[in-house]
């Protein structure tokens, strides 16, 4: 292992991308209208693409001869470092949209900062991903507004999702020792900086969407340390089925 902390840092974000990409892929063929089915599949595809770039780099740092697929398919839940937000079930379209918006308002500003990383490889992955997340954040933000300021039913539904997901909003900008060390070493970003930009964006969109901000700022945590919700086990059972049932094959 070249650098354990850098490996852990990359895995945190790679796991976020993979698990959210997997969740979005569940929508494929079942969207509310064809254009949005395509949009969700497209975002899922971008996220899987980002996960691949990050796992490829992580596996090189690891120096154990492992591949991107070993990292995605052969680790158990406690090794996954994604936040609890991304493993939350899709729910209705509004819940998927708000989960996505909470994630996009992180990833967009995260990659924007990561583009300045002292690690060139990370900076280049960030530059490519940032372009994608700009579009994702516009898409999910526009839908929060459309649903919030649409009909009475859509307003009530998305408000319900805002309330449900609010306690999963902040884990993604909580700072652990991996983040601290990464920032200190120069290849990581300042989550404090991202937090402010992100909160402003969320506030502006909720206002335009005529949605109210929940009062409690309690944040569920654990994902970044490998303590997940019950959902992750099922996500992995689905994701990893073939690799687990028929180990050692090429696909």
């Amino acid at each position, binding site marked *: 292992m070249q650098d354990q902390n850098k490996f852990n840092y990359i895995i945190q974000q790679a796991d976020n991308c993979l698990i959210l990409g997997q969740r979005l892929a569940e929508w494929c063929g079942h969207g509310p*209208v064809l254009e949005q089915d395509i949009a969700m599949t497209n975002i899922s*595809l971008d996220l899987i693409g980002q996960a691949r770039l990050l796992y490829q780099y992580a596996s090189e740092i690891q120096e154990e001869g492992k591949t991107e697929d070993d990292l995605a398919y052969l680790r158990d839940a406690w090794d996954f470092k994604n936040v609890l937000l991304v493993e939350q079930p899709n729910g209705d379209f509004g819940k998927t949209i708000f989960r996505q918006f909470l994630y996009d308002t992180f990833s967009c500003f995260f990659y924007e900062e990561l583009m300045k990383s002292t690690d060139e490889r990370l900076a280049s992955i960030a530059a490519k991903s940032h372009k994608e997340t700009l579009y994702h954040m516009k898409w999910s933000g526009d839908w929060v507004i459309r649903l919030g300021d649409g009909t009475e039913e859509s307003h009530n539904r998305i408000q319900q999702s805002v309330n449900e997901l609010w306690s999963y909003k902040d884990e993604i900008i909580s700072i652990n020792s991996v983040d601290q060390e990464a920032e200190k070493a120069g290849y990581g970003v300042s989550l404090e900086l991202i937090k402010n930009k992100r909160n402003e964006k969320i506030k502006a969109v909720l206002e335009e969407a005529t949605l109210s901000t929940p009062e409690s700022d309690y944040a569920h945590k654990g994902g970044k340390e490998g303590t997940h919700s019950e959902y992750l086990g099922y996500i992995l059972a689905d994701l990893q089925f073939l690799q687990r049932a028929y180990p050692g094959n090429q*696909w």
Partner: protein
Amino acid sequence: MDTALLEQRFNEKIDRDVRIEPKDWMPDHYRKTLIRQISQHAHSEIVGMLPEANWITRAPSLRRKAAALAKVQDEAGHGLYLYSACETLGVERDDLLSDLHSGKAKYSSIFNYPTLSWADMGAIGWLVDGAAIMNQVPLCRASYGPYARAMVRVCKEESFHQRQGYEIMLTLSKGSEVQKKMAQDALNRWWWPSLMMFGPTDAESKHTEQSMRWGIKRFTNDELRQKFVDATVPQADLLGLTIPDKDLKWNEERGHYDFGAINWDEFFNVISGNGPCNKQRLDARNKAWEEGAWVREAANAYAEKKAKRKAA
């Protein structure tokens, strides 16, 4: 201008292979036939997303997962262009969808078969998309302009999917014993339904003659089926897999493969609703549509509010 003269001009255009465009006069029956054919094709793309989407979350590698997502997304895109081509004939996408949801409109019966293993993702690409290409390449020269142009794009993407499916089959057939078994099992299940995709025999096909006259069909069902068998047998040989037909053999005299009798009872059963997944497929489409109603209503309501605010 009287109808007889208009019809004469229309027929002259068809004879000279001049494309018919949306604003041109066309016989009612030509319009109706096109709406039926194009919307059936669009519905097939949309319903066809379901059996493959069934394996996206379980794709065995990240590369395969990305390819599967991209493929199903392409199919949704084909649905979009085909519904748009249909709208140039004066029908609305929502009305076409409501015919699909009520069971009135048909879609390709192949999608009423289940995807039971990962190898089905290979077999569908190789056989189902392969058969679709045989059917669709001639439609790039169809007499109706918007349809022909949509088909050019569809065919390009389908041939990419076909190669991708074949590559999945190749990987499995060169893999472990259980992977070979998976590939053979998929071929066994998809072979005959793929041959049925070309529709009933020429003697039984009620639309063929008129559609050929109008240039919206260029080859008969049996001609296309034969072309497909001839192209596919050597590909199966290369995979080292066995096509499940004991009567399949090369006929030197005809210069074609002879093949066994198709089980038309099964075909007509699946078409009339008794396939293994007819109910599941339609239920899934209906559920997505009904559960999405509030989203579509919200989008319309918001667009109206926005337009009003702009005007004010």
